[in-house]
Every structure is written in structure tokens, then in C-alpha cells.
């Protein structure tokens, strides 16, 4: 059975890789299998996790039912009114509830991570000193670079002021900082993608063909 699984995995991997050459019937078939299987899988997972395990066992048949789950079930049913054109507007209520509740919940987190923590992290000793009280020039320079990056980066994200003159110059420095950061992030992520490719090659050459241990 394991051998069948390995062969299926290898053939499907090669079929997906064939897209690198050009679109072809094998890739199309593989794509359709992938989409069909995943859509079916998630339909079953959501049904059993949400409707059966969470709602049915938690609210309907449980010894101590969690009544608030009926609230979610009612919102879910309201969403199905989209199927009936005359009352399809009712489906906007559960949507409004989801968006509103999530926005409210995230608001505090956004303030903490994007405002309070940013301010607290930026406030630091610009002139770093060693144990003997002497100035650590390299560390001080690093702190200064971060400080300039934060200030000019924030300037770039001002939308109600035109980027002209000194302000525009600051914003331009800010976008340079952003691009350098993105470059570093790009390189880092490309390396992690390479490790994924190596993993696939390891599967093909090792598990499937047995050419490497």
C-alpha cells in the first residue's frame, strides 16, 4: 500500500512539474484531481468539525448543552437565504456580524502591535555604552539606522500630505529602507522555498527511485 502511495505521489509531483514546460493535459488532469479532492475533503472536514462535532454534539445531544452555539447555527441558516432571491438580503446580517465582531476583536491587537509596541521598541538609548562606560559606536550606529528607518518609513505612509520638498525626501528615504527590508525578506524566503524543492527531490530520488539514502 505504501508503494502505491509513493508511486501516486511521484507521478502527481512530475505531472505538476510538467507545468514548468507548458500547460498540458497531464497537468490539467492533475489540477482537476487536486481541486476535486481538496474541495471534497474540506466539505467533509467542515461538516464534521463544525456541524456535527461542534454544534450537534455540543449543543443538541450534550448533557450540558452550550446554548450559545444555536446563535451561530441561526446565523449559518440565515446565510442560506441567499438561495432564495426574494429574501437574499437577509444573508447580509450574518456577514455584518462576522465582519463587525472580528473588527472589534482585532482592534485591540492592532493597537498593541502596530502602535504601542512600536513606540516602546523605538524608544531606546541612541548612544550605546559598554560595561566600562565607553561608547559602542557600532551598536549606536545600528540604533540610529533603525530610528531613521522608523521615522522615514512612517513618513512614506502618510496619505493626506503630498510627498514634496523635505517631507517627500524623507518619504523617499523611507521607501529605500522598505525596499532593503523587502530584499532581505525575499532572499530569506527564497532559501526556504529551495528547501521545499530539495524535499521534493529527496522524495523523488530517495523514496521513489531509491537513488539516494
Amino acid at each position, binding site marked *: 500500500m505504501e508503494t502505491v502511495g509513493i508511486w501516486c505521489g511521484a507521478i502527481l509531483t512530475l505531472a505538476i512539474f510538467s507545468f514548468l514546460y507548458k500547460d498540458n493535459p497531464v497537468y490539467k488532469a492533475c489540477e482537476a484531481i487536486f481541486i476535486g479532492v481538496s474541495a471534497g475533503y474540506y466539505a467533509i472536514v467542515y461538516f464534521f468539525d463544525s456541524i456535527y462535532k461542534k454544534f450537534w454534539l455540543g449543543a443538541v445531544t450534550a448533557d450540558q448543552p452550550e446554548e450559545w452555539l444555536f446563535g451561530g447555527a441561526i446565523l449559518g441558516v440565515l446565510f442560506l437565504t441567499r438561495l432564495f432571491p426574494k429574501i437574499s438580503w437577509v444573508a447580509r446580517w450574518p456577514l455584518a456580524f462576522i*465582519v463587525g465582531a472580528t473588527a472589534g476583536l482585532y482592534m485591540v491587537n492592532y493597537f498593541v502591535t502596530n502602535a504601542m509596541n512600536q513606540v516602546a521598541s523605538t*524608544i531606546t538609548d541612541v548612544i550605546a555604552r559598554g560595561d566600562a562606560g565607553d561608547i559602542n559606536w557600532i551598536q549606536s550606529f545600528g540604533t540610529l539606522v533603525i530610528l531613521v528607518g522608523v521615522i522615514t518609513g512612517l513618513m512614506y505612509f502618510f496619505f493626506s500630505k503630498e510627498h514634496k520638498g523635505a517631507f517627500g525626501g524623507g518619504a523617499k528615504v523611507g521607501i529605500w529602507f522598505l525596499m532593503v527590508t523587502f530584499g532581505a525578506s525575499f532572499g530569506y524566503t527564497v532559501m526556504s522555498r529551495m528547501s521545499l524543492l530539495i524535499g521534493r527531490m529527496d522524495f523523488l530520488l530517495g523514496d521513489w527511485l531509491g537513488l539516494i539514502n
Partner: protein
Amino acid sequence: MKNLFNMSRFKIVFTVCVLLSLYSFVNAQAPAVTTVGITPPAPVTELTAVDTDNDHGHSITVKWTPSADDGAGANNVLGYRVMRSNSFEGPFNDTVGVVPLGSTNFENSSSIEEGAEGFIPDNTDFYYRVDALTGDSLVFSSSEVTGPVHSYGQWFNKGLIPVFFAVIIFTALTVLFVSAARKGKELYVRPLAGIEAVDDAIGRATEMGRPILYVFGLGVASDIATIASFTILSRVAKRVAEYQTNLIVPCYDPIIMTVAQDIVKTAYMDAGRPNDYKEDAVFFITQAQFAYVGAVNGIMIRELPATNIYMGKFYAESLMLAETGVVSGSIQIAGTDEIAQIPFFVVACDYTLIGEELFAASAYLGREPLLLGSLKAQDYAKAAVLVLALLGILAVNFSGDLGLTWLVNFKDWFKVID
């Protein structure tokens, strides 16, 4: 011989039992156990256990003064073991945590889910004891027992008071600017190249007779990036309707699909072409990340859209989509607030809205007072962050020299205990 053997085995078993009983008795009576070479350390003192403040319950914080032999004296303490029991007399068999030497506290917390591993029920009394451990597992000193203590949740998290004030100020600013915008005050939003290019891209698609592909990414309807993307889709759909071009919106999330269908339909009606609206322009694919990517890539290669617009929440699929778009020769405009994915869009797309530019774009296009007002309030909040950070740096670096000691801890004003 057989009897002798049996007798001998009986003696051995008997002796072992006696020794084990003795050990058990000694261990129960005397917390400090001695073996050759290592003497028991001094026990921890001033042991207290209280409910953890500012939380949802299910957590007890244990504090103590370290052993006199922790880094000093006999210097033989390697760590501390926190033990818990349901009664003062014990037995303290439940090891809830082990912390290294130098530690003075331990937070014994659990999930709120009943039945989870180590679950701590609220309003249930517990007793704690802390053992000072040495290199020999048999040599340790136990503290006095503290308790009873029980956990309970608080209605308010006092650690978030700074956030409370920040939210109040920000809300006031938003209300102020929204009402100003509603009264007709012109609120300036600087042009965004990526959004300015949308009209040109739709025109190009019309001239080429090819469709426009609009991708929301992997977000859900409640993501702020997705909400901003809805506004942009509305503008794009209206232009598409006016130019009588085709629009393709493959969706990852079924709720997004239903909202997008409403938006596109309304846009066609606003453009005066309700009959041109096609129900299947917006459709659901799957909720598996890479299956979705495979399908969208297939659409790009087969339908050859003139313009690909990626607006919303994107993860690892960003580069796969944008690379395929380059191969199919499409103009590409992207926008996301996922910092890790922006670099991929920057290298592979013609225009990229970076982070908050995506939110600004929705205000810029929509020109709705609510969006413009909140954008203006955000700018003021950013200005406040900038000023406070600069003031803080000055305070931290120079307040001591200037004798303004109350400013030295300026940074702490922004510390949030979550």
C-alpha cells in the same frame, strides 16, 4: 537446596521491602534528603500563591524568595520544582513546573478547555510547595506549603489601560474627521500609482479583447485587507461594465464569493448594464491553498487575461501567482498587508500597493466620508506615534542629565501587559 534457594530469595525480597519502606517513611517525614557528597540546600522562603491578575482565569502565580544556596552559600541549587496538591497535608505528587536557578516565580496556567492537559478549574482550592533541587534527584529541600488559592477571571485587564486611552483618542479623531468629510470638507489623499494604473489596465484589456482576473488571495471576509479589496473590486467591476470587458473572480472563500457576487452585480447596475452581469464571473474553487493556486494558474495560462489584479491577503502562493502572470504576459497590479509577501509582488508585478496603501486605495477610490475620515485619523495617529517615539528617545537619553527623573521611565507608559 531448593528450600535454601527459596529462603534466600525470600530474605532478599523482604530486605528490599524493608529498605523501600524505610526510604518512603524518611522521605515523607523529612523533606530534606541527604546523600553522600551533596548536602540539602536551604529551602525557598516567603512562598506565596495568588490568582494571576488581568486574565481570563485558570492561572495561579507562585512567587518565592530563592534559596540561600542559590548562587551563594553552598551554591548547590540547580533549579526549583513547583508542586501542587488539593490539600494542605498533601500528597504533593503533581509537578506543575520546573524552573532554573535564580527564578523567583512560576505561572501555573492552563487552557480554558475543560479536559485539556493540566486543566486548572476556576474557584477550586489548591496548595503549593516549591522544592529547591540539586544535582542529585534525591537531594532537595521543600518549602512550607502555601494555600489555599484559587484562580478566577477578571472583567478588566488593567494592563491594557494605555490601549484603552489610545482607542478613545483614535475613535474621537475618526468621528471628528468623518463628520467633517460628511459636511463636505475636502480631505486630500495623495495619488497612488497602483490605483491610477487600474483604469489604463482595464482599457488595455478592452483593446486586446481579453478578460481581467481579480484575485482576493486566501483571506476571509473579515480580514481588513479583504474588506479594502471589496471596495477596489467595486471600482474595477464598474469600469469593466462600462468598457464591456470580461471579469474573472476565482474565490478561495465561499463567503467572499457571495459578497463579491453582490459587489459585481451592483457595479454592473450602477454602470447601467445589469444585463451584462454574468453570475459565473465570480466563482468558488477550493479552500486548499495550493489547489487554489493551481486552478488560478491554469486560468491565467488558458484565458490569458490582459490584467491580473491581486488585492487582499496572500501567503506562500503570492510568487506562484505573480510568476505565472508574468509568463502569460499580463499587466499585474498587487496589494497586500502581508509584509512577507510584498517582496514577491514587488519583483513580479508592475505596480504594488505596500501594506497600508491597500487601505488608502479603498478610501481614494471610494471617496466615502467614512473611509476618508478614518484614513485621516490614521494619519494623525501615525503622527502621534512619531512624535511620542521622538519624545521618548529624548526622554530616555537626556532626562537624567537634565534632572527630569520622572521622564526616565517614559517608555513604560507604552508597555502593554497582555
